[in-house]
């Protein structure tokens, strides 16, 4: 039973995975995937800083600051971690901090505030909330409900931005707005009097999503341009998909064990051909999902022009199939698969939420289909 995202790893990558895996195992009692938000915040902050030391925040940080992966494929390295974290439903804004790190490296020079943000992001001291539910390769431009204009010699924001994923370690929000003809990513400090953060409820028991309303909040410019947004969206999409594949892999292993051990009519469930055949199809789906994530991660370094297409292929395929795959795991468990007590629903909750972040399956199918049609007409 292979439990790896990518079977062929370098010794450095194996070490990277092993140290995170061990940390998650050792601290497993510290977090609760089923929990609500009433967890010791200081503890969470300390735990996130320890994760940062293991490389969770460094893959996309500037090399001068000590950033970079452990191989020639930094996105693959990050995906290996996202996968392990997905398997355990580990908390913390892994995808958001990766996006932020990338954006900070594209910041204009001489921005002391961005400097501080980058440093704190890398060290795991603070994070920023990114609107993962509202951004993506399907939608490069900001929504119509937000406006940035000059007031009192500064850029200030007015309106609403939805889709933020909030964490207790956030010092502010980071998201794209329109500035004239182009998009610009801006940071707003949570302490600004002009921002009101409204968390909402989520199907996932651990994550917190919500809206920020702006009434003249000061906007700190971070990075500009469609290319930057496309780059950040590609990164986030592949990483998120890797986390989802981790969810799938964990439930695959749990259900495999169940099939071998559970007996019915005198023999294990695993001995029934109908179930064997369905399980082979599930394994095919799982390995296909691993494969497309790895392809996207490698393309990020090897062939960047093809990376957005592979990211959309991954998101279209995995968002669509992860839910059916997990439901198959539920079905094979029989009655206990739909109980609160079993972990299956907790993983399904995350999978449902993830399927709606960064563009749902159909949105990416539309992007890819548009390319097919354009190519056919050329």
């Amino acid at each position: 039973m292979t439990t790896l995202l990518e079977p062929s790893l370098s010794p450095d990558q194996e070490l990277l995975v092993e140290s995170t895996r061990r940390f998650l195992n050792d601290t497993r009692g510290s977090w609760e995937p089923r929990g609500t938000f009433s967890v010791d915040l200081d503890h969470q902050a300390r735990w996130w800083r320890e994760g940062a030391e293991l490389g969770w925040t460094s893959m996309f940080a500037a090399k001068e600051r000590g950033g970079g992966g452990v191989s020639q494929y930094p996105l693959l390295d990050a995906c290996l971690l996202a996968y392990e974290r997905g398997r355990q439903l580990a908390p913390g804004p892994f995808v958001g901090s990766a996006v932020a790190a990338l954006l900070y490296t594209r910041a204009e020079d001489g921005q002391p505030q961005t400097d501080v943000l980058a440093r704190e992001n890398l060290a795991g001291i603070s994070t920023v909330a990114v609107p993962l539910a509202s951004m993506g390769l399907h939608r490069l431009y900001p929504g119509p409900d937000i406006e940035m204009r000059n007031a009192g010699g500064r850029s200030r924001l007015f309106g609403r931005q939805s889709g933020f994923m909030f964490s207790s370690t956030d010092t502010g929000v980071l998201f794209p707005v329109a500035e004239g003809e182009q998009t610009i990513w801006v940071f707003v400090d949570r302490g600004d009097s002009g921002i009101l953060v409204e968390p909402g409820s989520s199907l996932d028991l651990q994550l917190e999503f919500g809206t920020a309303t702006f009434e003249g909040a000061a906007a700190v410019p971070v990075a500009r341009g469609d290319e930057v947004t496309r780059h950040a969206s590609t990164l986030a999409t592949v990483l998120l998909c890797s986390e989802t594949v981790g969810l799938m892999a964990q439930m695959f292993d749990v259900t495999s064990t169940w099939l071998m051990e559970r007996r019915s009519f005198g023999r294990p469930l695993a001995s029934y051909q109908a179930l064997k055949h369905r399980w082979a199809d599930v394994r095919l789906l799982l390995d296909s999902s691993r494969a497309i994530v790895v392809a996207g991660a490698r393309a990020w370094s090897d062939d960047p022009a093809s990376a957005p297409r592979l990211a959309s292929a991954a998101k279209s395929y995995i968002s669509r199939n992860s839910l059916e795959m997990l439901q198959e795991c539920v079905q094979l468990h029989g009655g206990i698969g739909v109980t609160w007590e079993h972990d299956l629903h907790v993983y399904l909750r995350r999978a449902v939420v993830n399927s709606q972040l960064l563009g749902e399956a159909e949105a990416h199918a539309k992007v890819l289909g548009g390319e097919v049609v354009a190519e056919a007409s050329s």
Partner: protein
Amino acid sequence: MPELRWKDSTPDRFRRDVRLWFSQNMSSLEDGWGYFEQDNDRLRELVARLYDAGLSGLCIPSQYGGQDLDPVYQRILNAEALDYEMPWFVGNPGLGIIAPLLMQHGTGHQLGHIRKMIQGKTVFVQLMSEPTGGSDMAGARMRADPDGDGWKLNGQKIWSSGAWRSNWGLVLARTDWTQPKHAGLGMFLVDLEQDGVEVRRIVMADGSDEFCEVFFTDAVVTGAGLVGSRNAGWEMAQTLLNYERQAVGGGSPYVFERRDVNRGVTTPGFRRLLKARSGQFSTTEVKELGASEAEVAVAAALIEWVTRGVANGKLPPIAGSMLRLNSGLLTEKRLGLALKFAGKQAAFSSSEEHLDIGASFLVRQASSIGGGTVEMQRNLISERLLGMPREHGGDHKGPYRDAI
């Protein structure tokens, strides 16, 4: 040893050189789908041309006549060759499946066949399935009786793809009827250009006749023709099957192969159809095409992922079954989608224009049956990769002569 033409090249330089060479030396083919009609002479001519340019057997070790290169070079060549007439059938099953088997189990004499395949002098066919059993390959009833130093073969094989254009065959036959089913088999290399071998083509539902029945009447195999030992045929067959699964799924580095991820599972008719729409597609259709395109990209990624894992020893060779299963299922979906898009034009048309989509649909299941059925792959994946309990078989346990 052939001259190692590319040992100092880089992938990018190789791509440029190959692109130029093709444009100057090979015939371009609008769709490249007329290749089924290539007979042995045409194949030999094409392979010889490629061989002289150092472009045949790119990844085969040099001691067997190849160029000793990394698989990426074969992929580059295959991508550049898409719009040209190519000798696709020298690779399937010869270089793609039989050459790896010989590299693993062949004698020095037998390994000489690899060089001949690379040069275009030999084209192989696999002779495994019989009318009484396709999936149950081990149930073979073809007789291999000792005759002097060699053997005499009697019996019939079926579904032998391309036997009509092949001059050599790899045959599974029963060498010992006193042994149980799996234990009394031998694998042989047979010269098909002899009186005792008769090839008849089988017409398929779409009118094509690539598959054949092959009849053996006291056909002669020399002593040098036995691959492995006398009763090791099943072991040879299982090795062969692993290579076949990988190759059918697109994972062999030894073959000229039409595997453009954007075109490989799209028929020329489907492409023409999409073009004829002049960009007029509903949102639903765009999404359907896109979702399907995602699956094509995933299939290509899976081939890379599995072949890398198997090559590095991180995945067991049986993981190749997943490639075979996936290619069958994907083809079913793609041809179903093409039929849907063709609509009335697949069923009736004032010209032949789109009827080929309908014809492809008629034999759609062939891609889920040939090279191992998808059902067999599910058995293999669940049992050998996932360790689930084996099926209870109904096979007779004693000598095979008592079983039939």
